């Protein structure tokens, strides 16, 4: 007899519907799975059989063929185990086919018949075209984030069978206990109030958060670059519900735990180490196309500490995704579009010894310094609207009594500035189109003369001018100036680019 069930497999951060067909016929006892399963999926043979026997079910000593359709799509992982097992129950007449007609099944089976959670439950449930979805108890909370589906949870194959045959009701699955693993993946966000001194860098972070401008922090070790970057998620506006769901979907597809309280409104913060491989950063892999750090940071902050230590090949990969806000990962078998809407924050030392920004302290030869700064290419450098020099805080700042402005106060100004940007039809000022700059950033007389002096001195290119104008617009928004961009705003925008000299000076441009 033949049974046909609905399930789904993961590709990138999207689910793809899969139909599991199970055929049980007379013949030598055999169990074959066809339809392009990957290694983990093919091993379902042994898991399903052991789970059957452990659950006290009779294994059909007949010829069993499982087909996973569409057969051109590579099926990854063990998430189809439950659908195959239930398909066998239907094909052997144990369960009525009518019961499973409008139901999808997701879950990995243990040898003891227990149901294990699957990665990407959120996307998988979304992809199944069924009214009801049966999934492992630990995935129920995640599956319920998808609207319009009735989610049924179970802890074992025996429970699923009892419920499908009507012997017992579906078990009640409540919200999971908040475990230590799920509580805030990035840890608590530090408060800007704990950063001493660093007036310029603080302003840079505020402008970056308000305008979505990418920031490069240049300074010696111990200046507090990492600390500053870690404060950023606390300055960004809380994620709106659809964005929070998108963040949850990517985390789920990467197999990371979600907060037990549902999608979190705190923007993500990812800080991959500089030994990160290209695929780990942008996503990929041969079968499943898993999201990388870039997608995990989407909607929040991607922090690249020690930018100069990253292999050039790795960081250059960021150029196109930063422009598009997404990355299309293509392999021989499939391609997937992964989200990549990040605020990029990078930190680097000015030279190999790290002391380059303090006069006379650097021990590096000019050739060493040139080699070091050249690792960050001009096109990548161009993506940063803000290039800020961060020096070590002075003794007076470190020991001084007065505490700086807390993140909460800054976040309020940022939210206000973002509201102004939204009124212009963009998410943040960094996205303002070139042809709208003249209309949206009218320059006051002082501002105009300041800029023309810089252009005349050859310190500002046409592209640089556009960037300065966008940043100046953000600064004016933060100051509450609706109309004209004043000279003081442009002056600050220029100051927040001063770190550029560290790189361009060495190149002799």
């Amino acid at each position, binding site marked *: 007899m033949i049974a046909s069930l609905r399930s789904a497999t993961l590709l990138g951060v999207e689910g793809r519907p899969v139909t599991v067909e199970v055929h049980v016929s*007379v*013949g*030598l*006892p055999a169990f074959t799975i066809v339809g392009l399963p990957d290694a983990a999926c093919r091993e379902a043979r042994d898991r399903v059989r052991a789970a059957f026997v452990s659950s006290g079910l009779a294994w059909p*000593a007949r010829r069993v063929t499982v087909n996973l359709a569409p057969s051109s799509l590579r099926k990854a992982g063990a998430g189809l185990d439950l659908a195959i097992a239930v398909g066998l129950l239907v094909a052997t007449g144990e369960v009525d086919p009518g019961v499973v007609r409008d139901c999808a099944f997701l879950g990995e089976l243990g040898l003891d018949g227990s149901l294990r959670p699957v990665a990407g439950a959120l996307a998988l449930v979304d992809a199944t075209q069924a009214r009801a979805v049966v999934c492992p108890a630990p995935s129920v909370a995640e599956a319920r984030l998808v609207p319009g589906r009735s989610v049924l949870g179970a802890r074992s194959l025996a429970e699923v069978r009892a419920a499908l045959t009507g012997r017992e009701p579906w078990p009640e699955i409540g919200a999971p206990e908040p475990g230590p693993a799920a509580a805030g993946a990035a840890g608590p966000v530090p408060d800007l109030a704990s950063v001493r001194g660093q007036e310029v860098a603080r302003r840079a972070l505020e402008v970056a958060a308000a305008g979505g401008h990418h920031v490069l922090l240049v300074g010696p070790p111990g200046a507090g670059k990492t600390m500053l970057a870690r404060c950023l998620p606390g300055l960004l506006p809380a994620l709106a519900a659809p964005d929070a769901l998108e963040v949850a979907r990517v985390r789920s597809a990467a197999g990371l735990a979600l907060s037990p309280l549902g999608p979190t409104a705190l923007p993500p913060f990812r800080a991959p180490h500089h030994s990160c491989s290209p695929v780990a950063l942008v996503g990929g892999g041969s079968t499943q196309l898993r999201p990388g750090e870039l997608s995990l940071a989407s909607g929040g902050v991607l922090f690249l500490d020690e930018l100069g230590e990253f292999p050039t090949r790795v960081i250059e990969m960021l150029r196109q995704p930063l422009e598009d806000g997404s990355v299309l990962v293509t392999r021989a078998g499939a391609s997937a579009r992964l989200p990549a809407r990040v605020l990029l924050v990078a930190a680097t030392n000015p030279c190999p010894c790290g002391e380059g920004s303090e006069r006379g302290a650097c021990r590096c030869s000019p050739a060493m310094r040139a080699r070091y700064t050249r690792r960050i290419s001009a096109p990548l450098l161009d993506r940063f609207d803000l290039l800020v020099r961060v020096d070590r805080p002075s003794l007076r700042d470190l020991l001084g009594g007065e505490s700086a402005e807390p993140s909460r106060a800054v976040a309020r100004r940022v939210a206000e500035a973002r509201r102004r940007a939204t009124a212009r039809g963009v998410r943040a000022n960094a996205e303002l189109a070139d042809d709208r700059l003249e209309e949206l950033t009218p320059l006051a007389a002082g501002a105009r003369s300041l800029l023309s002096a810089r252009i005349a001195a050859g310190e500002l290119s046409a592209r640089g001018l556009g960037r300065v104008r966008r940043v100046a617009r953000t600064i004016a928004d933060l100051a509450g100036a609706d109309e004209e961009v004043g000279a003081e705003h442009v002056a600050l925008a220029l100051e927040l680019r001063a770190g550029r000299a560290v790189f361009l000076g060495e190149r002799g441009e």
Partner: protein
Amino acid sequence: MSPPRPGAAGSRRARAVASRDLGRAGEDLAADWYAARGYALLDRNWRCALGEIDLVCSSGPVLVVCEVKSRSSDRFGVPAEAVGAAKQLRLRRLAARYVSERCIHPVRVRFDVASVLAGEVTVLTAAF
């Protein structure tokens, strides 16, 4: 072969004898099954250098090569499961040898597996 010595019921030899008797009884049951359905029994335990065919029978133009598997319990799975890929390949070669040595020209060769479990015979026709 000598009958099992008293007190050596669990010995290797005693088990081999029990197993052979079980196999022989299974083959009898399977032969009866084919006879009851009008097949002509051509050979039992036909041997050559390649091995042995348990039962060879025919029904009109079809030559049936049958492998009989007997078990006293299904503790280690049903008997038919023991006919793996290697065994299937061996039976195909044996069938070819049988056809050429006997100079018969069947229209079709069918491979059956007779699964005998605790005295109950189940024949899987055209098993592979």
